[in-house]
């Protein structure tokens, strides 16, 4: 197969990914303008687009996005760092692993939503409760991936560290963390991804700001276009965040050919 053929194949592939959504949009717009569905229930794409633009212009959307991003960031910071610290501990010490491993595995089986009553009882319906809820989502991918990376550091690296007298913090920062970095970054990516997923859940109870709040208000006022605009914004922002994190991953791991420690 020639390179040209492969490139053409790739372009065709991508076009296919655009054609289908465009087709769906056209069908959708057509169905509404032919009055097959009520415009009140199924807002046509063009109206939806106008609503999004309007929400942008009024500043409503921007300020609520800021609030939501802030929550995701704080939740990730809290849950992610707890997961990271415990993951490193479990990866380095078999004792800590045996002590904490079973507990973490049991707690992981609790569905995220099941935490909500507990959190409300513990913290009430305030900002910290929402951040804590997001933090639980951020915690698991971080602890498991960090643990996997740290416990998978090749034996030879540990020996090299001993030969060259690397101890405590220097050992951690120059050998363990760099070696586990591919896993840790995967953990960060999944962790932020899940934080984003749980954001709306967190904003479902007693909020007065955030993208989730915007959607709830839309529902209460029967503004379907606002609810749908919220969906579009959440999906798009999630995609942007994920793409940025992938770029970040590529940048940090440049120079590494494989994730198992290269030629080691």
């Amino acid at each position, binding site marked *: 197969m020639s390179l040209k053929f492969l490139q053409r194949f790739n372009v065709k592939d991508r076009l296919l990914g655009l054609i289908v959504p465009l087709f769906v949009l056209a069908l959708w717009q057509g169905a509404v303008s032919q009055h097959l569905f009520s415009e009140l229930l199924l807002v046509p794409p063009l109206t939806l687009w106008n609503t999004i633009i309007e929400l942008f212009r009024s500043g409503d959307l921007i300020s609520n996005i800021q609030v939501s991003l802030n929550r995701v960031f704080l939740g990730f910071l809290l849950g992610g760092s707890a997961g990271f610290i415990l993951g490193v501990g479990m990866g380095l010490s078999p004792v800590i692993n045996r002590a904490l491993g079973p507990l973490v595995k049991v707690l992981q089986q609790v569905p995220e939503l099941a935490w909500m009553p507990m959190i409300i009882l513990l913290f009430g319906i305030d900002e910290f409760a929402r951040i804590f809820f997001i933090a639980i989502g951020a915690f698991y991918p971080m602890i498991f991936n960090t643990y996997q990376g740290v416990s998978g550091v090749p034996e030879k690296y540990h020996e090299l560290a*001993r030969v*060259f007298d690397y101890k405590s913090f220097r050992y951690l920062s120059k050998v363990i963390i760099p070696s586990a970095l591919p896993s840790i970054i995967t953990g960060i990516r999944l962790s932020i991804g899940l934080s984003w997923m749980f954001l709306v859940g967190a904003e479902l109870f007693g909020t007065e700001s955030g993208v989730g709040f915007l959607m709830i208000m839309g529902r209460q006022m029967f503004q379907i276009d606002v609810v749908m605009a919220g969906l579009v914004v959440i999906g798009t922002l999630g995609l942007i965040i994920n793409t940025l994190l992938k770029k970040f991953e590529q940048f940090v791991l440049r120079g590494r050919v494989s994730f198992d420690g290269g030629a080691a």
Partner: protein
Amino acid sequence: MDIIVAKDVRKKFKLKHGQQVKNNGIVSNEIDALGGFDLNIKKGEFLVLVGPSGSGKSVFLDIVGGLSTPTSGVVYLDDKPVDAPSEKTGYVFQQYALFPWRTALSNIEFGLESRGVVKEERVKIARELLSLFGLSDFEDRYPYQLSGGMQQRVAIARALATKPEVLLMDEPFAALDAQTREILQNELIRIWEGTDTTVIFVTHSIDEAVFLADRVAVVTARPGKIKEIIEIDLPRPRHGDIRSCSAFAANRHKVWGALKAEVNKAQQDWKHAPVNSK
């Protein structure tokens, strides 16, 4: 003067739970890797350990390097018992074990960083070593951008950077193809002949042993101990061509003569490979 003295070094390994070996009718869940290893190594000599697979050569190297402790017996380095890795030793592994997140230059700096050498000095030392190995144009390359031979050169340079008195090399060229291997042997001997470093080198290759060594220590089949030490009476400096001279063949013959019986014994030893007791 002897820089390293090993006295009656023994090492037992416990088998995994449920495994056992039967040796001379005795059932046991331990394996004797080293069975009374006595060896004196002179300062500045190039000593090569050859022996059948599983004869504990690498175990001995780990003990000298302070990476492993003997079950009994003791190894002295400069008259002090070894109980932890020493600044005086450098280590080269069979798997090059370069860090994939560091460039060639930065991999060589690794050992100097923990010894508190300042950046400019580290870079200077690392560049000198790269140039010694003909790798000056590759200092910014990551390990995956280097051939196997280049990677092992960098790993040797990393070990030499801290100027060790004793360099431990555990089958460093085993993973390389035959031609690259000869080239690296030539380079190693050229570089070593310009230093006063003591080298303990483990290999399976008799040719490699004869070409590099001042003395070849032949290790017995498990449990390993020194069977015989053979002085290699080839002149120095040695060049690659020496491999085809008759004196080389004569030395080779001597080493193989001592080793042959042990290799056969090690083959028989497979009868006693660990089995599950249940």
